[in-house]
């Protein structure tokens, strides 16, 4: 018994890895689901978006890469679907080079049209790139949304946008044309012309920088989606009113999906997370039991 406990205490970590692997993967195949309760920070973000009038221009800052895709991509998809439904105009940028590519992937994934393309006035328009169909709404690149791409310079880019968007993002991503040519950019000259900033962040530059520059200096409300690792860092901004809502990790994504009525990947993944948490807690209990049993014994031995 004592030996067993001692072994348990110094268990090979690969055993833990295998158990976690099954805890994470099995629920996905079993299609398990758990009820999701919306937390206040997610509700805050949703309420802030609900308050915006139709036609509002929203900046979507994609500051993440494929590494954090499992957590942040569902938020991007749910957010874009919601914005299309509410008739918002959305402008994509990225302070991470991979961000705007992730946005392109989101366009394709939320597009519901079966056709690959259509021809309009002699122009070939591709679904998932030029046109996005969500339910009964169809939005068009350049008119309802645009992808301005990536710009190097981290938080200095935000600062530059505060003075002039054109200085930071002279051209759009898809066609490389001056951004003034696109009707969606009408009336957008500076950061403060946006009604809201929806930031998806996996690190630096990210939500902290958007709060420090966009909120504090240029007074544009920012709502954010963060990876679970990153989320505790931005909690202080939430409480201080500098951040208008937060989606933290997979759970935040699942709650947001519930609110916007688009239950998808994050909701599905919550089952895995729940089971994995239970196993981690189980491990901690086992570790502590082993710890106490062996400690009691070694004390006796010493005496």
């Amino acid at each position: 018994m004592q030996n067993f406990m001692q072994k348990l205490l110094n268990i090979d970590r690969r055993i833990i890895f295998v158990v976690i692997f099954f805890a994470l993967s099995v629920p996905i195949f079993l299609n398990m689901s758990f009820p999701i309760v919306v937390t206040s920070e997610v509700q805050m973000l949703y309420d802030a978006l609900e308050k915006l009038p139709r036609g509002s221009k929203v900046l979507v800052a994609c500051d993440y890469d494929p590494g954090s895709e499992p957590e942040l991509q569902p938020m991007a998809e749910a957010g874009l679907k919601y914005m299309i439904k509410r008739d918002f105009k959305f402008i994509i940028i990225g302070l991470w080079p991979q961000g705007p590519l992730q946005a392109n992937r989101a366009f394709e994934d939320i597009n519901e049209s079966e056709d690959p393309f259509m021809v309009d006035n002699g122009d070939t328009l591709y679904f998932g790139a030029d046109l996005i169909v969500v339910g009964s709404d169809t939005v068009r690149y350049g008119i309802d949304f645009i992808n301005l791409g990536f710009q190097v310079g981290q938080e200095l880019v935000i600062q530059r946008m505060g003075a002039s968007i054109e200085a930071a993002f002279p051209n759009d991503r898809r066609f490389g044309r001056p951004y003034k040519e696109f009707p969606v950019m009408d009336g957008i000259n500076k950061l403060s012309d946006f009604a809201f900033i929806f930031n998806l962040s996996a690190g630096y530059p990210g939500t902290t920088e958007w709060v420090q520059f966009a909120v504090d200096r240029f007074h544009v409300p920012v709502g954010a989606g963060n990876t679970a690792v990153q989320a505790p860092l931005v909690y202080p901004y939430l409480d201080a009113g500098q951040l208008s809502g937060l989606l933290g990790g997979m759970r935040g994504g699942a709650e947001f999906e519930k609110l916007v009525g688009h239950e998808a990947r994050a909701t599905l993944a919550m089952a895995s997370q729940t089971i994995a948490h239970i196993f981690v807690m189980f491990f901690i209990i086992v570790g502590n039991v082993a710890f106490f049993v062996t400690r009691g014994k070694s004390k006796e031995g010493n005496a």
Partner: protein
Amino acid sequence: MIIVLPVIIWLVHQRAGNPSISYPPYDLTAMITPGDSTGSITLNWQTLSGDDETAVSFPDYRIYRSNSAEGTFEKIDSVGFSDFRATPATRQYRDTAVDPGSSYYYKISCNTDGGLDESNLFGPVISNASEVIDTSAVLADIIVFPASQLRAFDSPNDNGSSITLEWKISPNDVFGSLMFGGYSVYRSTDPDGPFEMIAETTAGVTDNDRQVKIMADGREVEDGIEYYYYVEARWNGQTAKSNVAGPVKSGQQWFHTARAVSFLLLSILVGTILYYISYAKSGKELFIRKIAGLEAVDEAVGRATEMGRKVFYIPGIQDMNNMQTIAGLTILGRVAKLTAEYDTKLDVPVSRSLVMVAAREIVKEAYLNAGRPDYYNDDMVYYLTDDQFGYAAGVDGLVIRQKPATIFYQGAFFAESLILAETGNSIGAIQIAGTAMPAQLPFFVAACDYTLIGEELFAASAYLSREPKLLGSLKGQDIGGKLVFLTMATIFIVLATIFSFTNTEFVDTIARMFSVH
């Protein structure tokens, strides 16, 4: 000083304020009915609370009119439950019994229990039958009302070429309205026109606290030229013009008044730090508490020497513009000096090109100072990739294959922190971490032997070198920063707590005072 300072901050803050836009009870406005050839006048006001489509017993609004502001007001009509509602939040009444050319003043009242009785007085409105826009047009049921109290002023604290407009939104601009199309902003250099449309904005307010719409016009505004503006509200195919604001000129400012409080606080901090630097230079002893993680540096490098294995140094995944990277590199200098003295192999894989260049300089200099320049070669510091997880994969691979005895993680880390530290832990390396990323601290604490928490990382250079000037700056930072700021924070927190029961506006002011612009 601690008592005087809040007062100074308060005074400095008071200088920068905004004139407010008024919201009288009912918020009554009246104007000539657009598109009506008879010159009728339409009144618009906010519904009182409780007045909605289900409130059958809500008392009527009584409409009073007079020909002069001081004259006797006669009741001309009343509007009640069954009457037409312009929007859920506004009521409307059209006064058709008017003589063209006469001027009128209006007010309304409503007898609610304990509610507001009388509205603001609105006038004069001169009935003008020539205000015909299109006589053939069928008059709409609802009249669009304009934005009001439009104000144009030079955008404060900027480098010119910008004018800020703010206005009270139109009564028709109700949240969620599908009819209200937003505002068009017109500009001219002549009050009589011609005006040119320069921008369109959405409906709704921009500043929820003050309930105003704010817009900055930066479209080819030239400093020193006088501009005039008006705003047009668009509603269901109708439009309504606001008052014309102007003349207004844009200009540049020499001092950012909204940052005055920041300036004051920064001056105090810098002043104290400078004072303690000169204090330390004069040879006074300064105490610095023991930092276990830094004490362990020698032992950790020594262990690698005994085992004949490498020392790995990871300076974070951020570039040279991040203070944490710089702080991390100062520790690298110390570690490199030790590895030079002990003739232990040092590997510095980095994720930024500029960090690679800087780290090479530091390591080279350290080897030179240790009298071992021959042991140094450029390949000790090498670049892997800028990509976060690519870098984590690269370092993990190196750690597993080369099994270093000691690993330092000093700098800015993100989600890769635990991936790196657990791998190091699995091969049994001694690990000393240091970061100012609060979210990563728990991971390092769990997986490393020692962790420098936040400011300890920044203090490392002073701690390791024991140079008086550097120690002085630490002391200044503690006195100027922590003592003064935290005392002031405590004073304001106590004030805000007390006033949160009586005067919440004061609490908002305190919050605004310390917001950075």
